[in-house]
């Protein structure tokens, strides 16, 4: 049976991701000119979050806010594990469990940020 994470668990993982990012001065400097809005949504529970990157600072908002440059869609359990750094995004992306819509270079940048925060 597929495991289901709660909205709060996804929020907790996303907060860990945002904290990890904002603690990394190098990442902040590298993304100073990369202003993007990322919608994170679960497929199996009603859960949406928005990551907003402006002038190098990353913030987390509840729900969908504004027009997204990237959308990250997956099962709740996968999202919780992914943003907590428990798993790398590549495998679920390649087997279709994780869907990321947006420009290719933006997808690679997001992957790079996750790599810098959580390692390989």
């Amino acid at each position, binding site marked *: 049976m597929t495991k289901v994470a709660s909205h709060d668990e996804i929020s907790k993982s996303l907060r860990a991701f945002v904290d990890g990012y904002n603690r990394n001065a190098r990442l902040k400097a590298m993304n100073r000119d990369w202003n993007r809005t990322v919608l994170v949504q679960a497929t199996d529970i009603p859960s949406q979050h928005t990551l907003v990157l402006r002038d190098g600072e990353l913030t987390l908002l509840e729900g969908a806010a504004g027009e997204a440059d990237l959308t990250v869609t997956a099962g709740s359990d996968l999202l919780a594990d992914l943003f907590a750094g428990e798993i790398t995004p590549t495998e679920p992306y390649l087997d*279709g469990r994780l869907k990321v819509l947006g420009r290719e270079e933006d997808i690679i940048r997001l992957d790079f940020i996750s790599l810098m925060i959580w390692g390989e």
Partner: protein
Amino acid sequence: MALKRVLPLRTVVATSVGLALASSSFVAAVQVASFVAGDAAWLAILVAGVLCTLAALCFAELNGMLPSAAGLRLWLGRAFGPGVALTVSLLYMGVLTGIVGVESYVISHIMVVVLPFWSPAVWIVLMLAFVTLLNLRGVKLAGNFQDLVTYAVLCSLVVMAAAGLARGHGSLTTPLSPGSVEGFIRAVAVGIFLFVGFEWVAPLAEEVTEVRHISRGMLVAVGILGVTYALFTVAMTSLVPKGALATSATPQVLFAGRAFGAAGVVWMAVLSLAASLKTFNAGLISVSRFMYATAREHALPSVFARLSYRYFTPWVAILTLFVVAVALSLGVLWTGRYLVLVNMAAAVESVVYALVGLSVIVLRRKEPDLARPFFVPGGMIVPLVTVVVFGVLAAAVLATDRRALLCLVLGLLLAAAYVRLVVPRLRERARRARLARRRQA
């Protein structure tokens, strides 16, 4: 919340056509012509185009169902398992790199005709270095540039073909009688090479305003390519003897010179250069991103997952590809055996199309509830015909070229052995490193 996805249908068509339209295509077009009698190559090219349309329909169903930049890798993985998907993808990427080798061979010979002060080897290194630099800096020859170049090349080819045919007073030799059935099948099989790449537009599924644009774009692109190649090939064979075309690595330049003199040669060189730069750029981007993603899932050494901190491009993968592409291109230049790579590409492409048809059949049974925005009409007929026809065409290409067959079998064995023996070790090493990091943390 809406997504700011930006590519219109016009760009999807231009990308699909642009990826297939390369300088080396004309070498394959002449090979098609050499398998049939008189000026009947257009028949074989159009039949190859119709067959590619069947494959395009199968791609459209899979792409609508699972739209992803991972494309083929994802579909084959869902249908046949990750091992088969990785093996086929490795072989496919190897052949794609081979096409860069053929392309650089052809374009370097064209440049030597127009600007003879450098040797082909220097041109090869210069052009590949230029595209590598663009790739390292993350510059994509896409969007409006891609549209402009592709439509300019297409219009030029059609106008030149029409003018060439007019110069020959439209007198064609047996345009409706292609000769032996065996020759015609071989011509159609090599004709598949002319369309190689139309499906590489599928990874753009994540960047279009509507996923259906990809399906429509591929079908329109195959139609445009078929008509353009058919016209241009008949114009070439009607104006220049087939023997002269077949012994040249730059048949399109021979034709342009015969039809329009020095101005035609220069214009054809400009068109070929634009087409080749697009092909190099698309090839290097596709293969380097594939290497990056494969390294990120620990199926290639992790060094290939290194990204530039400034441009966010996989610089180790790009530089490695540059070295491999230069070595391959110089190897082709030294041996002159570019047709082996053309035949290998046609065969691998046919195998991939057959597997895509088979994936449609398997996934309809395995995952019947997955939403399919596009469903190939006619039940299992189209995917089944795709499997059989492209299987036969792959065999037909390889039957004409033993070297290509040998290289392909060796490549397949190497890829399969790598996936079975090396990948598990790389993954185990990565798992241990991750555990060690966690313990430290």
